[in-house]
């Protein structure tokens, strides 16, 4: 490179937000609406679901019929990226595993997420079992922000009054599908609680909300919604915030480091354009990281200076530590009673219609905390591989003539079997609390850089006894629900050799904890406002500040905490503290 030139901009923004997902989007939205001049940098391209969603496309509009060769959740899914990105590797230390999912696009992973929107409960913030550290904040301190997020974005559900599963301000939930009625019936007999789902989908008009449509039940939230009927950060936060003229978005901007001055305060960021590969730097009074838990940690660790020799804000040495995902294990099968079921449109919403919140008392169990269960199955849109299970089970139930036939086959008889079994399938997946351990972490790989020359992450992550015991419990529970609903299991039996089907860390895409908050600067990176202990004009608003997530999918908490941080920033600016 002969001319290495950094293009500097003169404008000093009130705030620079790195990342446009749930955390970055919410911070940008709140600050821009309050009149601050905000610059948002996104590593991927601009994405507007109204134009770019592959919603309502038919399977034959993909040459691979929606197979997951290119996009991990299939051709129509709205995530640009995946567990592997071309030219942007990461490494793992031998004997450990971590799968890092990155979506490079405006709105990040919120474009394709399951919209399952659960609040963490009082015991999640202040555990009573002493197994993990307490958060510096209580549920009651976060509750007003959960409420505001419910009102701003919309979530369906039902008021249940369950312990540690706080209710919200709910829109009406979608009614259960047929398979879900079978699941409810079976789960009840198995002693497992099932309640209506909680999803960020507008099943009715949201009071006061303009510019968003209501759900028309295509069941395709994963493709992102052209009428903004579900929550994506792109459609519900960033694009509306741009309309204030206070938020500017630069896409295809991969942030290299956070710049600091001699006093150790943040002055802006430098980034490389992924389009022209030129180097840029921009200045801001505040820097807010919402790049995703691991990407924000990486950015801090790569931002070394005289004032911050171990990486920005890392005097505690804890940046990258306490990395934790959710646990996941699943089971699938089919309901013989549903063979040859009547056809009708049951697409419903693309989020869950029912779910099982954690229902047990840990005193009688050999693992701490718990998991919730998500359910699936039914007459869904055909896609690659959706009937592969049929020839391996068609010998297990009697044919029309009452006789059992041989498993497998071909011809008109098999063609009929595909028709007969379609929609009879059922699936369930547990999502549980994985414990935040100091020894599970990411750090900068001393030997490797990505295609932009940015040092990459190296992961150390191992499941503990607790996570494996939890997965075992999931499998036993699933078996008992399947049995009680009269279903036949088609998935493999997961034993101790596979850790009971426990997915690799990172596979559930709920990673958090890498820049954790706390009251003690020696024991945490951020204070309770998600503000760096070491650098007062630096904030982190993704899942990195989480001390310990519950079994609840973390997006709703990211949104609430980011809103809380943004409002704190506004308040402190008023007092001229930052």
């Amino acid at each position, binding site marked *: 490179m002969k001319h290495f030139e950094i293009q500097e901009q003169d404008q000093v923004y009130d705030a620079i937000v790195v990342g446009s997902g749930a955390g970055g989007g919410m911070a940008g939205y709140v600050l821009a609406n309050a009149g601050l001049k905000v610059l948002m940098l996104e590593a991927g391209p601009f994405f507007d679901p109204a*134009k770019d969603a*592959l919603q*309502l496309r*038919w399977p*034959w*509009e993909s*040459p*691979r*019929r929606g*197979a997951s*060769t*290119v*996009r991990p959740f299939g051709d129509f899914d*709205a995530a*640009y990226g995946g567990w592997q990105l071309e030219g942007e590797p990461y490494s793992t230390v031998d004997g450990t595993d971590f799968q890092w999912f990155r979506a490079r696009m405006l709105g990040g992973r919120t474009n394709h997420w399951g919209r399952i929107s659960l609040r963490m409960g009082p015991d999640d913030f202040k555990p009573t079992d002493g197994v993990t550290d307490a958060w510096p904040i209580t549920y009651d301190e976060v509750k007003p922000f959960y409420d505001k997020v419910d009102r701003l974005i919309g979530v369906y559900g039902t008021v249940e009054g369950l312990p540690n599963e706080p209710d919200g301000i709910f829109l009406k939930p979608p*009614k259960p*599908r*047929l398979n879900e*009625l*079978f699941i409810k019936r079976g789960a009840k007999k198995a002693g497992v609680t099932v309640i209506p789902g909680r999803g960020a989908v507008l099943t009715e*008009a949201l009071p006061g909300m*303009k*510019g968003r*449509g*209501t*759900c*028309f*039940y*295509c069941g*395709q939230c994963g493709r992102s919604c052209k*009428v903004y009927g579900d929550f994506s950060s792109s459609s519900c936060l960033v694009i509306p915030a741009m309309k204030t003229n206070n938020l500017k978005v630069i896409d295809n901007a991969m942030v290299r480091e956070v710049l600091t001055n001699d006093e150790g305060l943040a002055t802006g960021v430098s980034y490389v354009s992924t389009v022209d590969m030129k180097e840029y730097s921009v200045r801001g009074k505040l820097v807010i990281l919402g790049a995703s838990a691991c990407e924000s940690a990486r950015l801090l660790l790569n931002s070394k200076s005289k004032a911050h020799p171990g990486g920005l804000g890392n005097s505690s040495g804890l940046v990258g530590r306490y990395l934790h995902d959710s646990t996941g294990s699943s089971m699938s099968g089919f309901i013989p*009673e549903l063979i040859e079921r*009547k*056809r*009708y*449109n*049951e*697409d*419903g*919403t693309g989020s869950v219609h029912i779910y099982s919140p954690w229902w047990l008392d840990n005193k009688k169990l050999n693992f701490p905390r718990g998991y919730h269960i998500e359910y699936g199955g039914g*007459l*869904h*849109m*055909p*896609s690659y*591989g959706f*009937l*592969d299970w*049929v*020839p391996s089970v068609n010998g297990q139930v009697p044919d029309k003539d009452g006789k059992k036939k*041989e*498993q*497998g*086959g*071909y*011809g*008109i008889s098999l*063609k009929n079997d595909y*028709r007969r079994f*379609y929609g009879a399938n059922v699936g369930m997946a547990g999502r549980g609390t994985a414990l935040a351990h100091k020894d599970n972490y990411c750090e900068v790989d001393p030997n490797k850089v990505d295609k932009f020359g940015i040092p990459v992450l190296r992961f150390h992550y191992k499941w503990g006894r607790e996570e494996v015991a939890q997965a075992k419990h999931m499998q036993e529970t699933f078996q008992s629900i399947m049995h009680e609903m009269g279903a036949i299991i088609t998935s493999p039996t997961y034993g101790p050799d596979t850790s009971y089907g426990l997915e690799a860390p990172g596979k559930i895409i709920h990673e958090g904890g890498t820049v954790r908050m706390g009251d003690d600067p020696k024991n945490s990176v951020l204070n309770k406002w998600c503000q760096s202990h070491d650098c007062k004009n630096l904030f982190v608003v993704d899942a990195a500040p989480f001390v310990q997530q519950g079994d609840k999918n973390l997006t709703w908490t990211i949104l609430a905490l980011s809103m809380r941080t943004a409002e704190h920033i506004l308040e402190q600016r008023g007092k001229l503290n930052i």
Partner: protein
Amino acid sequence: MNRRDSIKAIGLGTVGTGLLLESCRPGDSNKTAEETTQSSGKLPGVQDFEHARNTELNKEQFFTEHEMATITVLSDIIIPKDDYSDSASTAGVPAFIEFMVKDIPDYKLPMRGGLKWLDVQCLKRFNKVFTDCEEKEQLTLIDEIAYPLQAKPEMQQGVAFFSLMRNFTASGFFTSEIGVKDIGYIGNRPGPWDGVPEDVLKQYGFTGNE
């Protein structure tokens, strides 16, 4: 925005409801599955590199003419025409399989090798390749590889190949316009969701208050 406005916003609302549903129904397009597979049109939201990859794969030819002929016969043995719908090959399944083995190259060898295995078996028994065999001869062999639990140990390679071929055929057929219509999927269109229809609830002993 209410639901009707939602539908307008995605550009479907200017026609009557009947037309709206018609416009979303499979079968309204004149394109065959094969044409769509080979189509050079990039859908909005598909990234440039994805489109370039699809275009490259479509340019490449993997299977020979003889292999494609064998795949065509096999796919129609697996999913033949019946009273309700047409055959796998009519729905474009052979072209879909050609695309898939290039898309997931791990399938190239098992498919090529399996097709060869099939021909060698036929040459040994009938002194002809599979496509030249009488239907009765073809089915004699297929019967030995189509039922995994019954198959003799020496036929296991054939069983593995046939299972792969069967999955490809079912995927290709039931995701085509013909197949989606055949299987009776009637979603992927705007509409209300008010729970399981009354008669279906009753059929399975539910009251609707569960």
